């Protein structure tokens, strides 16, 4: 049986091509499980997974939880609102207490970049990063990549444009590393104040003109633009953002035939993307959500070290 090179998934930077390929192929088998009437396999029976969410999240948490349940794992959820974090317990104490209750795997969402890495130093469980600050969100990028791979049969040689708040986006960072490893050509586009310092060192094409970025692209992955960035003075108004970077029907003409529209959600309809585009036949936005579950099942399964026959 093939195995991943690491027992954690902290990010996609430095994850080898073989591992990403293995995850994508494994996702394919679990994708089929989701479409069954009985959407459940015994693969992770007896394994306990903690969903440790220090930041609010709806879809990622639900997606992980469903993935765990469909694999027959026992799951427990921890969110800041119901925990003793507010009493000032440190992250180390929190997870060590929970681990003392015999947890095998931890899915963590945290506002501090590197927090999942820190957890690997605090506990023995397998750690899966479900988003750490502006650093990485590897399962989101993997589901994006799976969705593209499923449609085109390859990632190699495709032109993929990531549009939005590059500076604060963990989804973009993970997509950059994963897509580049798989041989895709990656372009970044956003207002210059939302492009981080020395962004060109990622080795992507960088644009501040959306029309130039879209020209000849196969896939556009549109990121949510957060109102708080406007409040902190990084761009003047939502209206101007929409005019300069919003994805509308007219701009789609610049794309290659058989193009694809993606969005990791939650969408601001009418801001970064028009409803017409989001709901069009080329949009795979809901397919992404379904695939997300399968990707997370694959990651949980591969990191658990379980063999299929054990299940």
């Amino acid at each position, binding site marked *: 049986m093939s195995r991943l090179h690491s027992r954690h998934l902290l990010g996609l*930077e430095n994850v080898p091509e073989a591992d990403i390929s293995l995850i994508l192929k494994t996702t394919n088998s679990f994708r089929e499980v989701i479409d069954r009437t009985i959407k459940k396999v015994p693969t992770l029976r007896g394994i306990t997974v903690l969903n440790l969410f220090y930041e609010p999240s709806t879809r990622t948490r639900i997606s992980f939880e469903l993935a765990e349940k469909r694999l027959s794992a026992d799951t427990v959820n921890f969110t800041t609102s119901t925990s003793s974090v507010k009493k000032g317990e440190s992250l180390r104490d929190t997870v060590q207490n929970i681990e003392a209750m015999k947890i095998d795997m931890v899915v963590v969402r*945290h506002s*501090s*970049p*590197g927090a999942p*890495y*820190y957890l690997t130093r605090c506990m023995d469980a397998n750690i899966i990063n479900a988003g750490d600050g502006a650093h990485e969100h590897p399962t989101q990028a993997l589901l994006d990549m799976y969705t593209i791979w499923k449609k085109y049969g390859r990632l190699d040689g495709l032109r993929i444009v990531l549009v939005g708040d590059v500076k604060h986006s963990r989804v973009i960072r993970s997509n950059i590393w994963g897509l580049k490893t798989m041989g895709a050509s990656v372009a970044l586009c956003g207002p210059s104040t939302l492009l981080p*310092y020395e962004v060109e060192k990622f080795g992507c094409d960088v644009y501040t003109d959306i029309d130039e970025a879209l020209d000849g692209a196969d896939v556009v992955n549109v990121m949510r633009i957060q109102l708080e960035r406007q409040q902190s003075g990084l761009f003047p108004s939502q209206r101007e953002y929409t005019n300069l970077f919003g994805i509308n029907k007219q701009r789609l003409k610049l794309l290659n035939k058989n193009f694809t529209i993606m969005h990791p959600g939650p969408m601001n309809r009418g801001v970064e993307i028009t409803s017409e585009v989001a709901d069009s036949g080329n949009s795979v936005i809901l397919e992404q959500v379904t695939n997300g579950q399968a990707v997370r099942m694959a990651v949980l399964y591969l990191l658990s070290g379980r063999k299929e026959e054990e299940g």
Partner: protein
Amino acid sequence: MANKKYDLVIADGRIIDPALGFGKDAYIFIKDGLIQKVVTPTAAVKKEVKNLDRSQVIDATGKLVVPGLIDIHVHLREPGREDAETIESGCQAAAAGGFTSVCCMPNTTPRIDNQETVKFVQDRAKDCDARVYVVGAVTKNLEGKELSEIGDLVKIGAVAISDDGKYPQNPEIMRRGLEYAKMFGIPVMQHAEDQYLCAGGVMNESFQSTRLGLKGAPAVAEEIAVLRDIALCRFTGARLHIQHVSTRQAVAAIRKAKAEGVNVTAEATPHHLVLTDEEIGKEFNTNLRVNPPIRTTDDRDAVIEGLVDGTIDCIASDHAPHSEEDKDCEFDLAPAGMIGLETTLALVKTYLIDKGYLSWADAIRKMTANPARILSLPGGSLAEGSPADITIIDQDKKWTVKADKFRSKSKNSPFIGWKMKGQVYKTLLGGRVVFEQ
């Protein structure tokens, strides 16, 4: 014993003293805490020493003997955070690092912005293993709003003023601080980082912060702060000392100002001379979180160039203890600062002297005579009649930095596990051995 001619003799060491000349083998005779004489080892001298009681002789054959090192930038945390460091433990760390004089910054709790707190520190420092000189606050409570009673602070013994850790953002306040300090002949020591530009920053803004998604503090925040204060220094004719210079452009600005005769001096820390921001992504080690942040390789090289060509006058550790409880957390939630007293000399030897940037003579000057001159401190020389503050160095000794060996109460060093060359053999304070290996 009552009529001993000498209390102690340091025999056969190689003297490195910026005032006396370099590389001489000599015997140092100590009496009543003072250096009585420094002589070349003639047969008569050797014979005289041979007749002394062995407990009176330190054999320094093959070792370097230098004036007690001086660190003009440390945080002793007392009063307020005695769990992280006390004046006593900080002085023990100083002694272990070869430092016999340290200048402590005023960002304690309460702040050192009044006579009572200066007096408290001075009292606590009595009988400790290093001389402690107090740096008072520029502004009350380090708030950057009103000048503290600087005259009072100087009267009781403050050797300089600084709002270290913070930057008086209001240029009018900084102007008045410089003007007022000028009246007493003391410099303002400045932590030069524009607070707006580096707000929220937890590491250098570079591709590394971009890659890691950590908020960056840009080099331009330091450059602008340095340029503003050089302009104010020129305008007021006061004395400005730039602390922990970390960027290429800040070095260039200071170099130019010095060439134009502006009364500015500068220091660099071992961590800015050795580390780069590429270290952070390896393990998110919170001991690498420091203000100003460790920068790019290019900045690091520029700081070394500045140190070599004299733009940067001295090396200071910015020893900043933090408890393990405070540092054992997520990277961006950790307080800024790392300890440095016990690793500075070895880092200078391993990364500056052995790599050919500095000679021993240059390095020792930047840790003795130069810092003494900047703050008009006694010490920094082995001249006859000086207090016997002496550091003896085993220059080729290889060692590995270990957390449990630190004398400091805090262990927040990113150099734990690093292999070093050059170690303090003994430290003498006023003729008393305060540290020995």
